């Protein structure tokens, strides 16, 4: 039987990052990935000759080269990757579109403030004070208390419409809670989206995944694909190793898992008191268009759209909710490396409803998603005739099939473990359920959990 210093469950962003850190300092590490592709929640696939990305629409946390102390520069340094590795391009600009107000924003916070000034002039002072609080808050302290963010933000923002518009992108790009988020999480998301901002890797998520993979190979981290973990073995409340789905036993005194908090604990045989399964899941429609969005009258990178008087970020009652959506035009970043136009439309969905569908109903329901996506897109692509070259739609059950997340919950459980610890010694959670989100957040999570549990002790 093989013995390692550490076993990593899942070759998601955090799993690959943790493997690099541990192997860099001569730890014997193996990564076990159930799927045949790397990346986990942020991955890619091919249909026909087209490359498709799944997961977050954009990278957050843009930082120019040599900006000290920012998440992006920090993670590149910790992984010893030159700044140029991720081939980062900034967004052109994004929008929050609500029934009575539209706010534009880009990676310069003063521009966002000027937009707030136009739409909500009496809120600017409060917004500046909120900004001051956010800039001075240590959101990554492992011992922060959980605080509902809306309660805190209401001290500064007294207009509910503006409050909902500020929360909308932050919630839908990373909250496992419905309608609110933990204040530390809010600060992380606010900084990553409004202060640092959106960007995209030329070549999409593949560029990031392949550079992490190359680094893993260079430092000697082992990787086994198509190897799911069936059981986490422990003795006297300390991890011993894993049993794979191929019935192979692998031992290590440290197991770092990026397959989710409830999902990981379930593997230990624990049946009771599992962390809750997240409620938030989504459908996504990806359309390839003959023309570029900019030629069809749209130059925004991402549009956060809501058609209700009050924004609802909660599990939808029906299969999906087309009263709100996120639209992403991947061409609209500083470098456009696509031959075709691309539009992605995300709806909040209901996993339980999708799970019940028979094959035929499922296919029909995906057609409905497509039609509703096209209808919303037409409103935002004024010169588009509704024709497309290629489409794909995925649902909450697709997410579970490829990522092993319970309930198709892309933002994981509402119960996070900030220091990564679990009831079993040596078993550590990283990634989404450690509380850092998005691609940049997950990579940082893997780094910090590897440092904290694998290198410092």
């Amino acid at each position, binding site marked *: 039987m093989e013995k390692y210093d550490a076993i990593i469950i899942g070759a998601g962003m955090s799993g690959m990052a943790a493997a690099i850190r541990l192997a860099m*300092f*001569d730890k014997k590490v193996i990564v076990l990935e159930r799927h045949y592709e790397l990346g986990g929640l942020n991955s890619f696939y091919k249909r026909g000759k087209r490359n498709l990305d799944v997961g977050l629409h954009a990278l957050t946390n843009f930082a120019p*080269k*040599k900006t*000290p*102390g920012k998440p992006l*520069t*920090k993670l*590149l*340094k*910790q992984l*010893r*990757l*030159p*700044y140029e590795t991720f081939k980062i391009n900034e967004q052109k600009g994004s929008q929050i579109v609500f029934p009575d107000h539209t706010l534009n924003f880009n990676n310069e916070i003063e521009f966002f403030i000027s937009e707030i000034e136009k739409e909500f002039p009496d809120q600017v002072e409060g917004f500046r004070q909120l900004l001051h609080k956010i800039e001075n808050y240590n959101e990554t302290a492992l011992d922060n208390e959980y605080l509902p963010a809306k309660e805190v933000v209401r001290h500064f923002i007294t207009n509910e419409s503006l409050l909902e518009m500020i929360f909308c992108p932050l919630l839908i790009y990373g909250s496992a809670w419905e309608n609110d988020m933990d204040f530390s999480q809010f600060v992380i998301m606010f900084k990553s989206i409004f202060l640092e901002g959106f960007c995209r890797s030329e070549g999409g998520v593949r560029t990031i995944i392949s550079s992490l993979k190359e680094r893993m190979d260079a430092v000697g981290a082992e990787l086994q694909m198509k190897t799911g973990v069936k059981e986490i073995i422990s003795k006297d409340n300390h991890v011993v190793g894993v049993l794979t789905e191929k019935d192979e036993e692998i031992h290590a005194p440290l197991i770092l898992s990026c397959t989710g908090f409830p999902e990981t604990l379930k593997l230990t045989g624990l049946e009771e008191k599992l962390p809750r399964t997240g409620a938030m899941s989504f459908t996504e429609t990806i359309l390839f268009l003959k023309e570029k969005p900019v030629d069809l009258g749209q130059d925004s990178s991402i549009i956060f759209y809501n058609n209700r008087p009050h924004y609802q970020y909660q599990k939808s009652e029906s299969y999906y909710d087309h009263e709100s959506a996120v639209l992403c035009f991947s061409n609209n970043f500083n470098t456009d490396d696509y031959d075709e136009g691309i539009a992605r439309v995300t709806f909040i969905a209901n996993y339980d409803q999708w799970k019940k569908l028979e094959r035929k109903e499922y296919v029909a329901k995906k057609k409905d998603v497509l039609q509703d996506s096209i209808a919303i897109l037409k409103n935002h692509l004024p010169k588009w005739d509704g024709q497309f070259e290629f489409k794909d739609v995925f649902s909450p059950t697709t997410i579970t099939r490829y990522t092993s997340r319970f309930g198709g919950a892309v933002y994981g459980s509402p119960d996070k473990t900030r220091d990564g610890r679990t009831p079993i010694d040596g078993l550590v959670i990283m990634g989404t359920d450690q509380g850092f989100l998005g691609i940049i957040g997950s990579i940082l999570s893997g780094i910090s959990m590897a*440092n904290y549990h694998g*290198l*410092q002790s």
Partner: protein
Amino acid sequence: MDTAEVRQKVLDIIADVALDDDLSDLDDSVALREQLDLDSMDFLDIVMELKKRHKIEVPQEDYPQLASMQSCVDYLTPKFNQ
């Protein structure tokens, strides 16, 4: 090993840890943290690299000795020659 060689060994490590920093104008008497983008996580990397490459252990209470290039060289030269 003389001090110039020790300085080079330390510089090699810093060059790898702070990949995007320019080290050509480094002032040996000024704290590294003030000249380069290095935080506590990066200093830990320097300590781990010293152990990995040169089998030199730096106990936690001695971390302040690594503040500037000059103090690194002063502190590490005897250790390189042990």
